[in-house]
C-alpha cells in the first residue's frame, strides 16, 4: 500500500506564493486529477511531489515516511515517477534504448562497466513489455527525432513507467495532441495497472471526469475544492469560477473544451 501525503505544503518564488498550505492525501491505487487555470500552481505542485523543488515549509510523506528532504533521484528510486509537460527524452536514442536506459537505471544495472548492455536480457525484455504497454511496440527501433509528437508523448509516459513507480505523476499527457492521439493516450492511461496511484494534471475535462476517482481543483496555489467528479461538476464554487457561470474568470481548460 502506498499512500502519498502532503502536509501544509508551501512554496513561494519571491513574493509570489505558488503553493499555499496544500494538504492532500493520495490513496493507494486511486486515480487523481489536478485541474485549475494556468498559473494555478499545478506543475509547481508536481515539482514539489517529484522533488524538483523543495518546499519552503510543510512535509511530504510516502507510506508514513517523511521524504521532504529527498531529491529527485532518491524519490524516483522509492517509487515516485513523473512524466513531463514538455517532452524530455534521450533525443539521439531509439525508443527501445530510451526505455532500456530507464529500466537499467532502476534495476541498478547502469553502473556495470564490464559487460555489454546487450547481455542484459531481463532489462531488454522489460523494455519491450513497457513499449507494448504504451503502444509503441512497432516503433521500438525508431529514433526519437523521427517519432511523431504523439508517440513522443507516449514515450514520455513509458519512461515514467520504467521507474517501477508506486505513484505515477503525469503532467498534461495529452497536451498538444490531435484528437486521435488524445484518444490513444486516454486509452493508455485508463489501462494502467490498478495497483498504481496515478495523479494527472490534465486540461481535457472529458478525460478528467471519466478517469479520476478524485479531482483536486487548485486556484492561486490553494486547494479550492476536492471531490468526486460528480461533486466537482455540481460544486457551486467550481461552476462559478471555472465553468463560466456568472461570467467570472474562465479557466483555460474550459475555454478550450466547454464542460459537458
Amino acid at each position, binding site marked *: 500500500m502506498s499512500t502519498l501525503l502532503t502536509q501544509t505544503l508551501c512554496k513561494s518564488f519571491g513574493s509570489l506564493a505558488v503553493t499555499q498550505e496544500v494538504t492532500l492525501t493520495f490513496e493507494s491505487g486511486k486515480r487523481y486529477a489536478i485541474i485549475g487555470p494556468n498559473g494555478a500552481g499545478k506543475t509547481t505542485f508536481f515539482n514539489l511531489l*517529484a522533488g524538483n523543488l523543495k518546499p519552503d515549509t510543510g512535509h511530504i510523506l510516502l507510506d508514513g515516511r517523511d521524504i521532504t528532504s529527498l*531529491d*529527485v*533521484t532518491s524519490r*524516483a*528510486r522509492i517509487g515516485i*515517477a*513523473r512524466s*513531463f509537460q514538455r517532452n*524530455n*527524452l*534521450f*533525443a*539521439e*536514442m531509439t525508443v527501445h*534504448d530510451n526505455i*532500456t*536506459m*530507464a529500466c*537499467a*537505471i*532502476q534495476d541498478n*544495472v*547502469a*553502473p*556495470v*562497466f*564490464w*559487460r*555489454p*548492455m*546487450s547481455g*542484459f536480457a531481463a532489462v531488454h525484455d522489460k523494455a519491450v513489455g513497457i513499449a507494448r504497454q504504451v503502444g509503441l511496440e512497432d516503433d521500438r527501433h*525508431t529514433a526519437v527525432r*523521427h*517519432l*511523431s*509528437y*504523439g*508517440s513522443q508523448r507516449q514515450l514520455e509516459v513509458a*519512461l*515514467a513507467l*520504467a*521507474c517501477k513507480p508506486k505513484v505515477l505523476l503525469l503532467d498534461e499527457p495529452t497536451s*498538444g*495532441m*490531435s484528437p486521435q*492521439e488524445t484518444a490513444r493516450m486516454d486509452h493508455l492511461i485508463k489501462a494502467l495497472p490498478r495497483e498504481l496511484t496515478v495523479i494527472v494534471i490534465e486540461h481535457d475535462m472529458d478525460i478528467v471526469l471519466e478517469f479520476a476517482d478524485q479531482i483536486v481543483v487548485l486556484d492561486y496555489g490553494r486547494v479550492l475544492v476536492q471531490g468526486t467528479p460528480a461533486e466537482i461538476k455540481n460544486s457551486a464554487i467550481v461552476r462559478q469560477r471555472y465553468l463560466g457561470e456568472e461570467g467570472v474568470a474562465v479557466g483555460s481548460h474550459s475555454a478550450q473544451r466547454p464542460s459537458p
Partner: protein
Amino acid sequence: MAMTRNNLRLSIGVAVAVLALITQLSTGAFAQELFAEAAILAVFALSLDLLARSGLVSFGHAGFLGLGAYTFGGLAVLQNWPPSLAMAAALAGGIVSGLIIGCFAVRTSGAFFIMVTLAVAEMFFSWVFRSPLFNGADGMGGVPRLDMRAMGLDLNNPKNFATFCILICICVWIFAEYIIVTPFGRTLDAIRQNANRVSAVGGRVFSYRLAAFALSGAIGALSGALKAQHTNFLSPDLATWVVSGDVLIAVVIGGMGTFVGGIIGSGLLVYLKEILSSNFGHWYLFLGGIFIGVALILPRGIVGSLLDWLDRRNARNNPAPAREEEA
C-alpha cells in the same frame, strides 16, 4: 543491411590502426618520433573524448597529463622506483586526483566546467613551475622508459617505442569502445543527451560523471607517463593550458564523441605542426587558417561529418515510415 554509424566508426578505427602500424614499421627514425608523439596525443585525446561522452568538456586536461608525467618521472628518477611500478602509480594518481577534483568540478557543467578544470590545471602548473623538488621551470631530465627487455623489446629504440605507443593507443581505443557499449557507457550517453531525465528516472548523474572524470584522469595520466618517457624529460610546460587547448582542438578537428576522430585529429595536428614549422617561418598563420577552415567547413569534425553524411544517405535510401508531425 546498411552501414551503421558504429560500424563505420569501428572500420575507420581498424583501418587507422593497421595503417599506423604498417607505415610506422617502414619509416625512418625521425618519422617514428612523430608517430610516438601522435600516438601519445591520441591516448590523451581518447581520455578527453571519453569524458565528453558524459557531456563534460574539460579545458584543463593538461593537468592530468602533467600529473601522470610528474608522478611517473618523480618516482622513477627521485625514488628510483622501477618504471613499471611508477607507471601504475601514475594511473592510480590519475584516478585519485580525478575523484578528488571531480567532487567539486563535476557539479558544474558547460562553460563553468571548462573554467574550473582550467583553474585546477593551472594551479598544478604553478606548483611544479616553482617546485624545487622537480627543478621548477628548468624541468628535470633522466626519465627512464619502461624496461621490457625481458619481453625482447628495448624501448630505448625509437622504432620499438613508437610501436609500443601505438599499441597502447589501440588498447585504450578498444577499452573506450568497449566501455560505451556497457550499461555504464550508455548511461554516460544518456546523461549527455538529457541529464535532467537521468535524474528523474533515478540515476545519480553526479556519480556517473565523477566515475567518468576519474577514468578520464587515469587515461590522461597514462598519456602523461608515456610523454615523459618519450622525451625523457619533465617540464612544467606539459601542464599549461596550451596543451589542454591542443588536445581539445585535435578532438574537435576529428569529431567529438567519435573516439577515432580524436585519434585522426591527433595525427593530423602533429603532422601539420611538423610540416608547417619546418617549411614556414610564420607557421601559426597557416595553422590558424586550417583551424578556421575546419570550424567553418566541417564543424562536426572529419569523422563526425562523415557519420552525418552516412546518416543522410541511409535516411534517403530507406526513408522512415512517414508519420504526421504535429505541434
